[in-house]
């Protein structure tokens, strides 16, 4: 909260290019612990890329990412900054939870198996602890009874809720949602958003790329409006939706009326 002066996530001058196309054209953003920041904008504006740069699934071309003050991707050395090894990067990534558009559950494991997999095999937590916490998290997302079900036998909404439990099981410092409801049938969107709303209320630090304006309006501490790789507007949810400061944000919001 406001008492903690170090941002959970901080981006400085982030630039990402694919070929000659500049997807992110210099992003500066600080997300404080406990905040839910929604990133909105037209498709192709760089929202997903921005999210994927935070845990370096996408390697930024310029600029820097900080996770609670620790630089992601580079390590300080005598001769200046050097690239992190895969292993160092992997350890940093465990501090960032991620929920994907297409869930990306591991289909060869049960719901519980998905949730306890990384705590046991990456973080080295004792199995019985991971199982106990996994069961608690499945209950939290309303899927205690699906503990032993394989992803193939779950609906999209259930898969995504398992994926959220899987991310929570790592006890991440920040949770990233990459269009978590875009691949879902309309009638399944609500159950996932309800879980996300609960998490925001619990005070988790969340960065949410979304097209669900209603969710952003209700759950976001702040809204970031991205267009053509630049942050056009950052405001509280109330301010952004009731009186957007820029024409482009106004035009964008028109489409959701």
């Amino acid at each position, binding site marked *: 909260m406001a008492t903690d002066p170090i941002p959970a996530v901080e981006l400085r001058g982030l630039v990402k290019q694919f070929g000659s196309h500049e997807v992110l054209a210099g992003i500066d953003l600080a997300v404080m612990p406990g905040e839910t920041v929604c990133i909105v904008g037209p498709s192709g504006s760089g929202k997903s890329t921005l999210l994927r740069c935070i845990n370096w699934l996408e390697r930024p071309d310029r600029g820097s990412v900080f996770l609670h003050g620790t630089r992601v991707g580079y390590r300080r050395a005598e001769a200046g900054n050097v690239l992190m090894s895969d292993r160092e990067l992997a350890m940093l*990534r465990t501090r960032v939870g991620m929920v994907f558009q297409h869930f*990306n559950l*591991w289909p060869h494991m049960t719901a519980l198996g998905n949730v306890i997999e990384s705590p046991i095999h990456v973080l080295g937590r004792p199995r019985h602890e991971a199982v106990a916490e996994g069961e608690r998290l499945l209950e939290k997302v309303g899927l205690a009874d699906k503990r032993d079900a*394989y992803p193939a036998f779950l609906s999209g909404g259930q898969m995504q809720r398992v994926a959220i439990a899987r991310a929570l099981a790592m006890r991440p410092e920040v949770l990233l949602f990459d269009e978590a409801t875009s691949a879902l049938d309309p009638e399944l969107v609500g159950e996932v958003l309800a879980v996300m709303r609960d998490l925001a209320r619990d005070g988790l630090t969340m960065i949410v790329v979304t097209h669900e304006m209603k969710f952003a309006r209700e759950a976001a501490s702040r809204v970031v409006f991205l267009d053509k790789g630049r942050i056009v507007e950052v405001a509280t949810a109330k301010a952004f939706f009731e009186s957007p400061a820029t024409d482009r944000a106004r035009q964008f919001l028109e489409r959701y009326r």
Partner: protein
Amino acid sequence: MTFRLDVIVKELPQFARGLGNTVWLCAVSMLLSLLLGILFVVPLMSRRRYVRGAARALVDGGRCIPFLLLTYLVYYALPSLGLSLDKWTAALITLVTYNTAYMAEILRAAWAHLPRGQTEAGRAFGYTGIKLFRRIILAQVLIAVGPVVGNQLIQLIKDSAFLSIITVPELTYAANSVQSFYFVPFESFLVATLLYWGLCGGVEYLVRRGERLAAVVRRGHGH
């Protein structure tokens, strides 16, 4: 003609031994090939072009020798280089070499078809290198290739008949020796054929079971 069932009954032990040898030769070499194939698939999927190219050349070389010719090479040509092998060793080496090339290629194809999101989720959760391969990729790839591996096993069982050329007493060899001793080619080869059908039928059954498992993994990818 009269069907010489008496000969067949009398020589059942020889058919059984032949079948037994075919079964263990194919089973053992399939297992070894699968393990070697797993080692080979890593360089086949390497990001480094030269590593990938070298592995590719080896695998294609292995796949594109006729099985019979490979048998000749191992059993008759290697002694010229000072490497004499008994027929069992030669048989196993031939089966494993030939089959590993196929296994590696089968595994590579399945790995390449794995949705990108799978390894991406692995990375996002802190997996890297061997652990990513073992926990996330390999498990899924092995389930996905089950049916294809089964079909390849059927191919291998049939190819193993060529081993009779180097006097390995497998099923075809047994049938051949029974027919030449008693002059009963029809009875003898018919029995061998039926035994091959039975064997492949068993494998086919496992293939169908495997297909169901593979379908669960495919559907679990969620899109």
